């Protein structure tokens, strides 16, 4: 017991001694931007796993401990984490990260939210009052997020302000260069149809001039029914839609069934770096993968 206490105490001291900014990000996409900006000056923890449905993360008690020690909490806001984050914050006993506190970074602020419902009606499925929360797949929004994060880091750790701002500027420059490249790559496929499982790709489609109008699930959060799928298949044939995208946590089997009857290609996609193999290194790698794999799928079908 004595030894245990001693170890615990040493661990505590070690935590106290590292003057790094303690940052918790709810999802890996936000975390990857935080990493670009914070570098080795931050201690970064990500709550959701990259392959996980970000709406349904368990409010594990271990997260309470992480949030309790956080200087900065980076979350998407816009109800993405509404099913699990509020309860964790309530138990975290950390005034730094509660709503509107200095350490709370609500990334959706300043993002032009799409699909904000005119009226709230759950007969339309589980719609989000604040609009579609999957905004990070538009690189322009990633820039807004980078801006928020750099701002928060600089405020919390003024000694490293220049470091954070430089990194943020570097990230944005890289992102801009990449964005031109991505747009060029997808330009030949402007106006093409993509079929998605869940409505989480609106921002991506809008940025790159693609059309996502058909979804394998009939309404957000409602599982696909055979009659709905039959309808989707008919519409896909009519609209010449030949690419179906599937997130790692959604049923690839359903997508494959639909692909078989339409001759479409199933493309594995993810909103989170690490959600698909080869995208572990961060946001740019993820967007690279998304653009390349979609361009490839479109190219094959020409």
């Amino acid at each position, binding site marked *: 017991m004595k030894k245990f206490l001693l170890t615990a105490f040493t661990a505590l001291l070690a935590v106290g001694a590292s003057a790094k900014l303690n940052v918790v990000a709810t999802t890996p996409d936000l975390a990857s931007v935080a990493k670009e900006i914070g570098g080795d000056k931050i201690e970064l923890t990500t709550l959701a796993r990259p392959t996980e449905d970000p709406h349904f993360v368990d*409010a594990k008690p271990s997260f309470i401990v992480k949030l309790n020690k956080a200087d900065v909490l980076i979350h998407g806001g816009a109800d993405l984490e509404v099913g699990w984050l509020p309860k964790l914050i309530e138990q975290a*006993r950390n*005034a730094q990260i509660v709503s509107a506190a200095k350490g709370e970074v609500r990334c959706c602020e300043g993002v032009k939210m799409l699909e904000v419902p005119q009226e709230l009606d*759950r007969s339309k499925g589980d719609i989000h009052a604040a609009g579609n929360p999957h905004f990070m797949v538009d690189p322009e929004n990633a820039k807004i997020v980078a801006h928020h994060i750099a701002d928060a880091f600089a405020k919390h750790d003024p000694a490293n302000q220049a*470091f954070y*701002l430089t990194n943020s500027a570097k990230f944005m420059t890289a992102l801009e260069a990449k964005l031109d490249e991505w747009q060029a790559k997808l330009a030949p496929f402007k106006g093409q149809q993509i079929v998605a499982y869940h409505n989480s790709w609106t921002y991506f489609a809008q940025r790159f001039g693609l059309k996502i109008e058909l979804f394998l699930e009939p309404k957000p959060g409602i599982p696909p029914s055979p009659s709905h799928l039959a309808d989707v298949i008919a519409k896909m044939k009519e609209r010449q839609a030949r690419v179906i995208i599937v997130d790692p946590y959604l*049923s690839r089997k359903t997508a494959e069934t639909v692909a078989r009857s339409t001759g479409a290609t199933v493309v594995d996609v993810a909103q989170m770096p690490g959600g698909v193999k080869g995208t572990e290194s961060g946001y740019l790698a993820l967007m690279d993968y998304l653009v390349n794999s979609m361009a490839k799928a479109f190219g094959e079908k020409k």
Partner: protein
Amino acid sequence: MNMKPLTLWKSFSMTIGVSALVLGATATQAQDTNQLNALKQQLEQMQSNFDRVVRDQQAQIEALKKQIVTMNEPAQTPAGAPGVAATTAPPPPLEKTWSPTDPIRLGKGGTYADLGLVATFAVGGSTADDIEGGTQLGGHDPNQNGFTIQGVELNLQGAVDPYFRANANILFSVDSAGETFTELEEAWLETVSLPWNLQVRGGQYLSDFGRINTQHPHAWGFVDSPLVSARLLGPDGLRNPGAKVGWLLPLPFFSELSLGIQDSQGETAASFRSSGHSHGEEEEEIPFGYRHADNNRGISSVTDMLITPRLATSFELTDSQTLVLGASGAFGPNNSGSGGDTMTQIYGLDVYWKWKPANAHGGFPFVSFQTEAMLRRYELGAFDWQEEADAGEVPIIDVATGLPAVLASETVTDYGAYGQLLYGFRKGWVAGLRVDYVNSEEGDYEKMDLTFEGDTLGRDPQREERWRISPNLTWYPSEFSKLRLQYNYDDRREAGVDHSVWLQFEFLLGAHASHKF
């Protein structure tokens, strides 16, 4: 700061460069030209290094300037209009202001409190003729053949001010006799942030004992309350006005120690200063312990209050497996018998394990196991049925004397456990199995030869051994509705075996509060 080390390094490298020159100058005469060339080379290299540093710095200064321009960009820049890529400055945060034409919303962000309503109903039947308080011990369990309103619960929660948040759960229902009643399930305020990782909650709240007690019925995995919690904590659970302080231990894993102090009386503290009866229930013919709870002892010290300590810890076994362990206690006075300082102690251990893979969709698939074991030591107070007989009541008779029974004070021990396994096998579908067991050590009063209205009394029906096995299947059409079919196989040793089938249906309107793990 980046600049400082760079400047330092610059002057350092220049110093080295100059020293090298001086050294070179004094030593030349004696040295051959080779060495001079080497030094020249070194100097050139240093100069080029220096140039590179300056260039890098210049680049960083440019980047910073750009960043400053970006950040100073006035707020009127419209947020990146679609298609028109705002290539330079990311739009500054826009706070959407409310305008009179906007719809008024009840829900997150639209009001100062989140408002939600959960209504739970059951329909079904049982072979038992004593469903309410017989096969079904919970106060919100299905209570009759036909339909039962298990509860219509209104929940309000939100931040009070920067210092407190608050929560209220008000339950409306109609009992088996058709009487409408309202219950204040919970209404408390809680601190947002106190020093030393403390958190204080005050008001009416569910005592921090085990797992099932702090969950509202709509969050349970089964139609009804486990037997052990209904029998030992009370049909409506353990909740009362009070205050508790919770301390998040400064450890690398989750570990919380809490201590609550609450009033010890009333039907929501059934094992303490309570008559033991829940709402809508008729006074039973034969009371718990074969004696009345008439000891109106009041409160004279802190130990007359209900004290509930709890320790809960949690570990991540793997990336997809979480374990939560808890130990709880509930200590306080009871009012058994007609006098004395009789006390009750309840101890509980709970384990919760959950597996959910890294690619779960909508929370599925998952497997969870939850078990709680409880033990109660209840001090029965001395009781003389002669006094009741004198007051005109039909007394319990001691056959040995033929007179109204004189019951001595004694401490009786009750215990039990339940274990429940839930398997979310596909999105929206959960199969469950629960096993309940309760029993007790036979008390001295149960060994006496007692009769009531000519019937021989044996084991106390409220302490008898019994089993129950409950498989069920739940379908969640969405997060906001639920249909659950459950079968209960009940084995009460004296009353025999009973079969019950219940179909539960539930809807949720408004805000859906996130659930504790």
